[in-house]
């Protein structure tokens, strides 16, 4: 089977590119489109650092064969960053020491974005559940949970 032409909308921009068979969404974002915010951690869907939104829902982009989402709308961390400055979640992570090495941060913020899109005033328990698929080895999670709650309060 030859490589296929993939057309997806990424962060509002229509992208058309050629993908080798078996390319993951994560691979296409990083290696073809140059969007390197989403990271490859475990590659099997247990660490969450590759979290992106496909058609509005948070997914592990390392588990999405890009050929299966032709025509979809994708949002990555780059797409949440305003032209000027930082998004409320990004600012809250910065202000509340919720990022240390930074490897989990893109996934954490995309999981939090998905939560706040459907639940603008989450409880602490809602936040814990929302990031339960995202692993952080530095912070012990408390500062991340706090940052998400503070961002929710600031924007709602």
């Amino acid at each position, binding site marked *: 089977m030859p490589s296929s032409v993939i057309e997806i909308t990424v962060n509002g921009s229509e992208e058309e590119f050629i993908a080798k068979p078996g390319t993951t969404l994560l691979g296409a974002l990083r290696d073809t489109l140059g969007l390197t915010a989403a990271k490859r951690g475990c590659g099997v869907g247990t660490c969450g650092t590759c979290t992106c939104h496909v058609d509005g*829902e948070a997914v592990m982009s390392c*588990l999405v064969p890009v050929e*299966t989402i032709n025509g979809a709308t994708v949002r990555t961390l780059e797409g949440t960053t305003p032209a000027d400055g930082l998004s409320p979640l990004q600012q809250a992570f910065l202000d509340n020491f919720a990022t240390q090495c930074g490897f989990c941060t893109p996934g954490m913020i995309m999981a939090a974005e998905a939560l706040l899109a459907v639940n603008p005033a989450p409880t602490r328990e809602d936040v814990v*559940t*929302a990031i*339960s*698929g995202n692993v952080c080895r530095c912070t012990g999670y408390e500062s991340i949970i706090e940052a998400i709650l503070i961002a929710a309060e600031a924007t709602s």
Partner: protein
Amino acid sequence: MLVHVPTSVDEAVALLDEGKGVLVAGCTGLYPHLGPDQSIISLRNAGLSGVETDGDTVRVGATTTLTQLAREVPFLRESIASIASPTIRNMATVGGNLFAPQPHGDLAVCLLALDAQIDKTGDVVTSITFKVPEHWYYTKAMRRKQNSASIVTVASDGVRIALGGVAPGPVRALAAEAKLAEGDIDGAAEAALEAADPFDDAYASAWYRRRVLPVHVRRALTNAV
């Protein structure tokens, strides 16, 4: 790896019959463990997603995600919340869960307790049908509160009892059901051991699973969801 994305069930069945690859849907279970020389047949665009409710009968398309099912079928919400993380539940499908190896596949344990019926076309599961029970009992013992595999899973409608985590596949605890029919919950808890054939893994030893199984059966049956 070749990626086939059939747009109908018939096309998927034909590809499967021709040995073109292994079936995947949510790509959360089998997919990450495939080698580069293995190919997949993705059911994502085969039109098998959706939940139809007719009275107390629920028909769930095989590629309905766990998130969609939880949204549409309230009595299963708490049970589904015990499975993986929200991000994985956005991808993992109801049909795929039937094939998740233990100690995963807690929804399959629920479906066994519900005596769900499976519809197939060829070797492709197309939908799963069950009735909304009057009562629903569920408990899952894990190493942590969320996003962990099962040590012991118990699901029951008050008549049938299904177990996960304690045997090579989801099992009905028939001896326990007989005790439960007599109203003997303590007897049912002990009798559940007859259905257990537990294993050691990174989450718990077989000894531990056997030791705590009666406790969780008793807890499940005394706490309706």
